[in-house]
Structures are given as C-alpha cells and as structure tokens.
C-alpha cells in the first residue's frame, strides 16, 4: 500500500497508531479524572491502558501487514517497517511495565491512576520519535516522552529520593533538550530544512560534508541524544534517577525510553547524515568510553538497583557500537539488541521490585543469598536474566551481542568488537555474583525471602519475558528476519541512492 501523505485520508491512515493511542489517552484521561480513589480504580486504569496498547499494536500491525510506504520523500512522519518494529517494542515494553506495576503500585500505596496515563503519553512520544520524518517531530516526541517520564520518576512524591530523581532528571533533561534544539537550529541553518531525507539530499547536493555549521549542529544533536540514551560522558543523571525512581518505572526507562532514543538517533544518523564521514568515529569514541566506564563502575556497585543502572549504561555502549556501523546491518542489530535487552531488563527490574520495599535502593546483591533454595523459579528467572545480560549462549542477549559483533566485524570495526567482548568479560564480574548469591550462598535467616511476592499478572509477565529470552536465544530466526527486513526500509536520503525510489 502506497500512501500519499499530502492527502488527509492517507495522512490519517499513516498516523493511525498514534491517533488511536491519542484518542484512547483522552478517554483514559476522563476515566481517571472521574475514578481515582480506590485500588479498584487503579486496576481499571491499568486494564484500560493495556487495552489501549493492544489496540495500537493491532493498528501498527495493520500498517505493517499492508506494507504501507510513502511515495517519494517522507514528510513529517516516516512510514516504514523500522517505525513499526520500534513501535511494537515500545508498546510491548510499556504493556509489560503495566503488568508489573499492578501489584507494585498497590503495595507501595501509590494510588495514582495518572501513572498509567503518563505511561501512555510517554509511549506516544516514543512512537513519534521513532516514526518522525522531521527533526521537529522527533523533538516534539522526545519532549512528550520526557515530560511524562520526569513525572513518572517522581510519582512516589512522599519519598525524598524519588523527588530528587525527578528534579535531577528534569533539570538535566531540559539541558539535553536545549542542546538538541540548538543542534536542530544549526542543521536548519546549514541545509535550510528540518526534513530528515531532505537534509541528506542537501548534504550531498550542496557538498556540505565538512560544513562547520552542519557539523556543529550534528555534534549538538549527538550530545542531546547522548543524554537520553545515557552514554558516557552524558550519563551522570542515570544512576541517581534510575535508583530513585519506582522500580517498574526504572525498568521502563532502561528499556523503552532508551530504545526510543536509539531509534531516533539511528534514523537521524542513517537517513540524514550518512553522507558525513565524521560521525561514525564520534559514535565509536562514545561507545568506547561508555563500554569501559559503564562496566567498570558497575563492577563497584553493591546495591542491585545501582548495579543494574550502571549496567544499563554499559549496554548503551554496546548498542552505540551497532549505531556506529551506520548501515542496515547495524540498524538491524540495534533493533534486535533492544528487543532482547528489553525483555531481559524488564524482567530483572521486576524481580528487583518484588524483592525490595520502599524504592528497592537498599537491596544489596548479597541480600539475594539463598534465594534458589526457597524460591527456585524466581532464582531461575533472575539467573536467566543475568546470563542474558552477560550475553551467554542460549539466551536472547547472546544473539543480540553476536549480531552487534557481526555487524561491527563486517563493517571493518573488528577492534571495536574485540573491545566489546573484553568489556563484557568485566561484566561477568558483577552479573555472576548475583547468581552466586542466589545459588551458592545460604540465606542469612530462615524466611529471608518470605516477603518476595509476585501477583498473578506479574508472574505471567515474568514468564513471558523469560520464555522470550530463552526462545529467541535458541530460535531467533523470525525476530532476525523481522529486524533485518525493517532495518532495510530505513533508506539513507543521500545522493547516492535514487531520490524517488518509492515512485
């Protein structure tokens, strides 16, 4: 199906998922305003949110199924498979977050149905980021997502730590947005457009490869996105914010928010700036320091939540390796890794949420001692997550890492691949102690893990995550085909490719 986005009908069709979710959000807003007192209201909002995500997922599926594409250059919004797969990723992560939040919110007495509404808005923002065909749309999506997540980070407003996290995130996030916006302005100054594909064409046709204004703008864009994906040296906010936010929100931030940042970054770099030779080396530099610093600092953590937070920084470094490859293979590896990391990380944070009380920042790795003896299934689930994060064969994390390595080696970056594997050896030093504590140490007292509770929905979501991690570790074929196919649709808008191949 070819969409002509200059007609209203096709524009509505092309934006169907976003429109559906926005409409649903408005309905939800009314419901929440009307019923926001009891735990029952909270559950109602949760179920409605899930229904909204499911419906939106179906809308995305319809666009994917009909192979909707734009004719010629995409205007404000891109219509390609990359967007659809990224949307599924966001919707899936948000849906799992909802499932994990049911028990958590009641347990922590966070009777605020707005929580779910904010999740919906954040997801909407992400979808615009990944699907934006224009820097302005991407920026709007980013702001919509960020503002919702600022509030989510501080939703537990009775706790000082949560408030601190929200404030820190907001201040630094605002800074990052400013950088991004200034970068957009400079890019506009150099090329006269904010449309991604047109920027690529302008760069090629006007010979702007070494234009100072453009390079400066690109640099500022990288800084802005670097903040959002928590790449070193722009990661300073991440550990404190991840630590202070309610744990399901942390899981959401570590997976979906980060994925949105990466999806937008990959789109901008591949579509607009593939003609510029400088950026891959900058991204390589970023990934270099991110992998090393993230892993080394994670090694020093004793708190499980902070360890996962820093490890998430390290994973951003691995993903940046995929970004730096800058071709379809790298983008496919990025998508696959984000999916694998998403399932794994969500499950890990959910297990942490079940273990801890009051923000979970006080759960030490050694507090898990003896978990395998009393709660074998939960210990098994966490062990699978740790091995997947470590990139061990048999898990989705391994296939993801393998894919990134393959893309890097094929792209002539063998030494970067070697650095990636060497830093993941470091990560064994902090993932293995978790397994070690659970299986090889004995519990300090008899019912040390009695309080670890999972509701039925949480258990289902956890089982889904772990099953997906194991399944995609052994049979990745379908997911590989999906990510490969979708990355191939992310065509660079440079002069090398025929301008209107869609016609």
């Amino acid at each position, binding site marked *: 199906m070819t969409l002509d986005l200059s007609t209203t009908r096709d524009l509505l069709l092309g934006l169907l998922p976003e429109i559906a979710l926005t409409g649903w959000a408005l309905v939800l807003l009314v419901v929440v305003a009307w019923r926001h007192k009891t735990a029952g209201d909270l559950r109602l909002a949760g179920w409605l949110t899930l229904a909204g995500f499911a419906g939106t997922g179906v809308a995305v599926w319809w666009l994917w199924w009909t192979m909707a594409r734009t004719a010629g250059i995409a205007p404000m919004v891109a219509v390609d498979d990359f967007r659809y797969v990224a949307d599924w990723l966001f919707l899936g992560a948000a849906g799992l977050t909802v499932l994990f939040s049911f028990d958590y919110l009641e347990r922590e007495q966070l009777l605020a149905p707005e929580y779910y509404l904010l999740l919906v808005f954040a997801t909407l923002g992400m979808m615009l980021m990944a699907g934006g065909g224009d820097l302005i749309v991407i920026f709007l999506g980013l702001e919509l997502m960020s503002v919702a997540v600022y509030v989510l980070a501080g939703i537990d407003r009775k706790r000082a730590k949560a408030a601190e996290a929200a404030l820190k995130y907001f201040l630094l996030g605002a800074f990052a947005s400013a950088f991004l916006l200034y970068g957009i302005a400079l890019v506009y100054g150099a090329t006269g457009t904010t449309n991604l594909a047109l920027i690529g064409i302008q760069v090629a046709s006007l010979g702007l490869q070494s234009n100072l204004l453009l390079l400066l703008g690109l640099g500022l864009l990288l800084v802005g996105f670097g903040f959002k994906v928590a790449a070193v040296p722009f990661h300073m906010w991440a550990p404190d914010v991840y630590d202070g936010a309610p744990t399901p929100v942390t899981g959401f931030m570590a997976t979906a928010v980060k994925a949105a940042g990466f999806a937008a970054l990959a789109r901008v770099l591949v579509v607009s700036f593939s003609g510029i030779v400088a950026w891959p080396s900058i991204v390589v530099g970023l990934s270099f320091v991110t992998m090393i610093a993230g892993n080394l600092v994670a090694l020093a953590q004793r708190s499980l939540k902070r360890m996962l937070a820093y490890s998430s920084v390290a994973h951003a470094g691995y993903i940046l390796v995929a970004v730096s490859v800058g071709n379809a293979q790298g983008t496919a590896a990025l998508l696959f890794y984000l999916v694998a990391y998403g399932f794994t990380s969500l499950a890990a944070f959910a297990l942490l949420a079940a273990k801890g009380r009051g923000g979970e920042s006080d759960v030490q790795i050694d507090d898990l001692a003896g978990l395998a003896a009393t709660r074998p299934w939960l210990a098994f689930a966490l062990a699978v997550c740790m091995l997947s994060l470590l990139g061990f*064969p048999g898990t989705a994390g391994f296939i993801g890492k393998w894919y990134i*390595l*393959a893309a890097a080696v094929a792209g002539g970056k*063998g030494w970067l691949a070697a650095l990636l594997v*060497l830093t993941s050896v470091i990560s*064994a030093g902090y993932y293995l102690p978790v397994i*070690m504590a659970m299986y090889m140490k004995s519990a300090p007292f008899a019912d040390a893990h009695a309080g670890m509770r999972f509701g039925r929905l949480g258990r289902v979501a956890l089982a889904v995550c772990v099953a997906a991690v194991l399944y995609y570790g052994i049979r990745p*074929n379908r997911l590989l085909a999906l990510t490969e196919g979708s990355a191939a649709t992310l065509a660079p808008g440079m002069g090398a490719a025929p301008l209107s191949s869609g016609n």
Partner: protein
Amino acid sequence: MYDQSVVTVLLVWPLLAAGALWLVPERLAKHVALAAATIEFAISIPLWWRFVPAGGMQFEVVRPWVASWGISYHVGVDGISLFMVLLTTFLVPLSVLGSYHYITRRERAFYAHLLVLTTGMVGVFVALDLFLFYVMWEVMLIPMYFIIGIWGGERRLYAAIKFFIYTMFGSLLMLVAILGLYFTAAAKTGVHSFDYDFLLANVGALGTAGWWFFGAFFLAFAIKVPMFPFHTWLPDAHVEAPTAGSVILAAVLLKMGTYGFLRFALPFFPDVALHPTVQAGIVVLSLVGIVYGGLVAMVQPDVKKLVAYSSVSHLGFVMLGIWALTLQSVQGALLVMINHGLSTGALFFLVGMLYERRHSRLIEAYGGIARVVPLFATVLTIVSLSSIGLPGTNGFVGEFLVLIGVFRTYPVAAGIATTGVIVAAAYLLWALQRVIFNRLDKAENEKLPDLSLREFVVLVPILAAIFWIGLYPKPILSRMEPAAQQLIDRVQPAPSPSAASTAGR
C-alpha cells in the same frame, strides 16, 4: 539408522535425563542419573566398531538452524573426536557412581548439572559448525560453574568465578575471530556460512588478519589446556571442585583446549602456526609447562593440588606432540589426551575417596596406610605408575610416542621433555611414599576402611583401560592414524620447502 542419529541422541539424551531427574524423588536421583549415564555410554559403544578409520568425518548430520546467517546444526565424528567422545561417555557414569557418598545435599541438582555438562562436552567434540561449537563451548561453562560453586570446597566461590572469567575471556575473543573467518570467507565466495568444512576450504590466505585470528583462538584454547602461564585458574578449580567435578575437569574439559588446537587453530592458520617464532614460542611454553608443572607439583602439601599441577605437566606433552607435527607425535599427543583422562581421573577419584574417609587432603595427614587399606594402596600405586609412564601401562605408550615424534623435529626439546618424565616419577613416587608407605604414625589412620565394592566398581574399568592401552594400543592407534595423517598433510604442505632445506643441510 544408528549412523545418522547416534550423535544427536548422545546430545539430547542427557538433557532429557536431566529433566527427568526432577520427576523422581530426591533419594532416587543418583540411581536415575547413573542409569542415564550408563545408557549414554552404551549408546556410544557401537561407535567404536561402526567407525571406519579411513572414512574421514562420519556419523554426520546437517540441518539448517538459523538459515539467514548460515548457521547449521552440523555434527560428526572423526578419528580425533571419536576417542574424546568415548572418553567422555566412559567417565560420566563413573563420576556419577563416584559421587554417591560425596554429594549429600541437593543431589538432584548436582546430577542434573552433570548430565547437562555431558551434553556440552560431547557437543564441543562433535560440533562441525563454528557457531554451534562456540555455543557448546560456552554452555558447558554453566554446569561446571555451578558444580564448583555449590558443591565445592571452602574457597569454592573464588574458584568458580575465576574459572568462569578465565574461560570466558579467551572464548569471547575467539568469537570475534570466528566472525572474522566468517566474513572473510563470505567476501571471497559470497556465501555466508559457519560450516567448518566450508570455512576451511574457503578462508584461504589471511595475511595479517590471520595473526589476530590465530591469537584469539590460541588464547581461548591455551587458557583451557592450560598452557603455562595461563594455568593459574586450574589449581583453584581442581582443588575446590567436588571429586566428580575434578575428574571431569581434568579428564575432559582440559582436552577441549588441545582438541581445539587440533581441530581449529592448526588447520585454519597453518601459516601462522608453523611460523618459526610461533612454533618456538609454543614449544618453549610447553616445555616450561612440563618442567614447571612437575616441579611445582613436587612441593605441594595437598595431594589434590599435586595432581592438579601434574595436569599442567602432562598437557605440556600434548602440546609439544601436536606442534612437532609428525605422525608419531600427533598420535602420541592424542593418546596422552586419553591417558591423562584415565590416569588423572583415577587419581582424583582416589584422592576423593581418601578425603571422604579422613576429611583431609594433606599428604602429612597420612603415612603407612598401605597396611590398613591394602586394596586402596594397590590401586593407587598402579594408577600412579601409569601416570608416571611405566612400561606396560597406558602412560608409557603415549609419552614414548610423543618423545619419539618430537625427537625427529626438535631433538633438544625432546631431551628437556624427558626430564619431565623423571620429575613426574619424583613427585608421584615421593608422594606415594609419604601417603601409603613410611610409618603408620597417626592414630586416626588405623581404622580407615578399605575400598568398598562401589568404589572398586568405579576404579576397575579405569584400571582395565590402563592396562589395555598399555599392552595393546594398536586398535586405538590404527583408528586415529588416518585422521592424524590428514591433519598433518593439511597443515604441512607435502613438498615442504623448509623440510627440503633441512634435509639438504
């Protein structure tokens, strides 16, 4: 029917059995595991007769796995892997039986890990797809990590993580090198495949990249062997592991390293492997390992540590034999791999049996126990002598072949390696003297029970193998000869200019 399915059955059966363990009561777990491991061995026995020595790769299965990346489930057995597979399936039931009393808690989990480990070990030896090989190579880490970490000695946590990280460090770099080979062959042929035969045929000359790739493979395998100076994980892991863990670790896991050299590092990178500097370096490291391992073993107060260091020495012989690249030396190296598995495996069993009786592994805690436990002392003496390489036992045949073969290529190295045999006699006989002979001067040792029937059953098959290989190794040698010759021909081009010039001198 048998030929097409045997390898797959060998891989799947232990996994099924490990799953089945959770369906039976905890107290029956060990019996079920023993039955499963025995059946696994029984399945593998016909390989011995069905194997055609000159037939190259046999029992092959190829099935696509991740077709878009050219990953397939490709397994097979040749004259090199046949004995490694048989050694594995032979020792696993014995390890299960040997753990009957040693493992007293979480038995079900222990035997499940042991069975999963079996799949991993057999998988490493039969994999003919580099992706599959890597997966198996890593997967077998997890059960071993748990076996050391849960059922090990006092410093088990340290030993387990050290073992894990050392192995992972080497193997991850190998992963990058595998990808390098994959893309090199793809660039030359346009076909993306991890298949062993395809890559071997199409990688071709690699230039400088070959050095990096070889370095990565070398590191992975050298850590596993372990070659000096990469051996420091081994004493910790061996000493802390429970008996069955030590036996499997010494008998099978170390062989994965030498097997890796034979299967991958040499055939893929003959230019690098035969480069004079590399050759000299590896020969020197092997010699250092032989002599240093022996000398360090001599001063150990702990019997288990002594046996552990003796592994470093024995594996040095294997490396030397492989790198000398003569038919005798390679066959000898393969034989030493088997012999070390049998002798050192038996030594670890015996040390474990002593430990179960006295809860001490210190040599000075014993003395004169030959009078109390005559049967035990007899077996220990025989096994020690086979480990030293007394003629008539298996150890002699292997080391003798290696030394003959090496003498033709590196006479000086052969001379130095011979001192390793003498050192081995020194540390083992001295230890033997202090443990079972001397005066019986400790009251605790006067009431030690002799070998039980169960323990005897564990040891007898190994003793039988020791004498069989020692007296009549021909069936084994004739089965491995074509594969060894093929390897040498592949690595060393027949009209070798260097050989001609040496002959001319």
